[in-house]
């Protein structure tokens, strides 16, 4: 029997890929920023203190925008002790429960990231040198984690129906 189509999976695929590309472009900017800072320091004897601040907050985007993509493509390291011998039904149940547990933890991270971001907004927290507001970057953590939690739920649903965790087809 043909599998019913799941329109949300291509949507997840496109979304996590877009987030990852945003992270990738930010990384290219960080690379250029690092080179610019080195040139300014050595050639013009003008160290860029603000570059450090921008590099720090930029890294948040690089790291968290790719979290869901890494999960979606099966990148996060796991140890497969039971895959070789456990009956399919056991794997189906355990994978479903494990993915849902992961989703709960990552959703907690998203929630707490948002909470701390709101605190940072209220307190007006910023970076050390040029006081870039921290709130948007806590928001990036929350968005990245929320996207990964959605991926984990989608994978739990896949596991529940006995499909390959990392193969949306």
């Amino acid at each position: 029997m043909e599998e019913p189509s799941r329109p949300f999976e291509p949507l997840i695929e496109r979304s996590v890929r877009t987030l990852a590309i945003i992270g990738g472009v930010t990384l290219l900017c960080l690379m250029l920023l690092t080179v610019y800072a080195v040139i300014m320091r050595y050639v013009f004897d003008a160290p860029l203190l603000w570059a450090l601040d921008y590099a720090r907050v930029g890294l948040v985007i690089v790291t968290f925008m790719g979290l869901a993509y890494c999960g979606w493509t099966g990148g996060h390291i796991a140890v497969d002790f039971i895959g070789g011998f456990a009956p399919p039904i056991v794997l189906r149940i355990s994978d479903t429960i494990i993915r849902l547990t992961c989703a709960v933890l990552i959703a907690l991270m998203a929630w707490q990231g948002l909470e701390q971001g709101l605190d940072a907004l209220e307190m007006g927290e910023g970076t050390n040198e040029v006081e870039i507001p921290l709130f948007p970057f806590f928001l990036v953590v929350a968005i990245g984690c929320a996207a990964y939690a959605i991926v984990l739920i989608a994978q739990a649903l896949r596991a529940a129906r006995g499909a390959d965790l990392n193969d949306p087809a």
Partner: protein
Amino acid sequence: MTPTEVGIIGLVALFVLLALRMPVGIAMAVVGTVGFGVLNSWPATLAQLGREPFVFGSSYELIVIPLFVLMGNLASLSGMSRDLYNAAYAWFGHWRGGLALATIAACSGFAAVSGSSVASAITMGRVALPEMRRYGYDPKLATGCIAAGGTLGILIPPSTGFVIYAILTEESIGRLFLAGVLPGLLLTSLFMLSIYIQTRINPELGPPGPKLPLLDRFRALSQASAMVVIIVITIGGIYVGAFSPTEAAGVGAFLTLLLAFWRRRVTGEAMTSVMLQTIRTTSLAFLIIVGAHIFSPFIALTEIPENLASHLTDGSFSRLTVLFLILVTYIVLGTFLEGFAMLVLTLPIVHPLIVALGYDPIWFGVTMVIVLEMGLISPPVGINVFVVKGIADDVPLSQIFLGILPFWIAMGVCLALLVAFPNIALFLPNTMFGS
């Protein structure tokens, strides 16, 4: 219930979650969160869940990871691996086992721009394997030398293994990078010696290729010179103190990108692929780092590391015995546990123990990475073996493992030399930064 009992339950829970295929970073975070909540307080554990990801996601020192990963991926894109192999082939190819020697030399060179063993094995495997097959090399030697040569990626700086070790143990990334240079060259030489001995015993394993005229050899060498310049600027820059590791990574990635542009290898599709691969590897490393940092405070509260350290340092065992036990345990664990997983899972307990025993943590970082490399090519879950299998799908796994065995022994010899002469690792960082 005592904190140590809670800790033991936590460790058991961790291994159950891992056995049930939970990603390592999340398993550590789950156990760390629940354990910290039980031993400390739930509001504190929740706050930690919000804070730790941001703290590590915005740590300046950690920018080195994505930048070096980017540099490695760009190096593959620019065709550097082919240049390196051609240069090594031009000089070694006409020797017995020369193509295998060239593969190891090229792997060693590629390791100096790539921090990942898997990336090194894939990149060099695609270049070197068809050549070795063309000249009738024994599949055991051909696949074994690629799988083993690839592992140099995490020993010769830049190395993601060293960065993760440094972050988890608060050691200097620059010191660890420099500490990896001489052991990396030693291991390269031992791999080559292993090929020499194998082909001496059985010349059929690696017949010699044609000898190139001297002019062609220098031409091949000059083709690889761009890469040598980049390596000298990045690693040399760290050594002379011109760059921090992060700056070296940024400059190295930029120069590699320029080279890729110069060679007209940069297309929209290729850059998208490079970015996605880089972001994927970065996220993988960060999730593990965040998980380990949520797990570590819990383990510290359980007092397990202190109890273990005081038990093992009370005089009933010699330092060397404890070290030997640790290394053997790692080698055994490495046969079924993924390398990075092993690193992050054990360091919260083993690092305090090593420090209590009076061993240099930088030196231990290098020995750990070599043990981790052994795990990368050990059955049943040696990742590099499966990478090579993916390139040479007609060679049975058993043949690949047989081919790896001499290289695995070479790693054991390297490890023994490093234990006997710690200065092999410590000489460069001590001359640069002082002891």
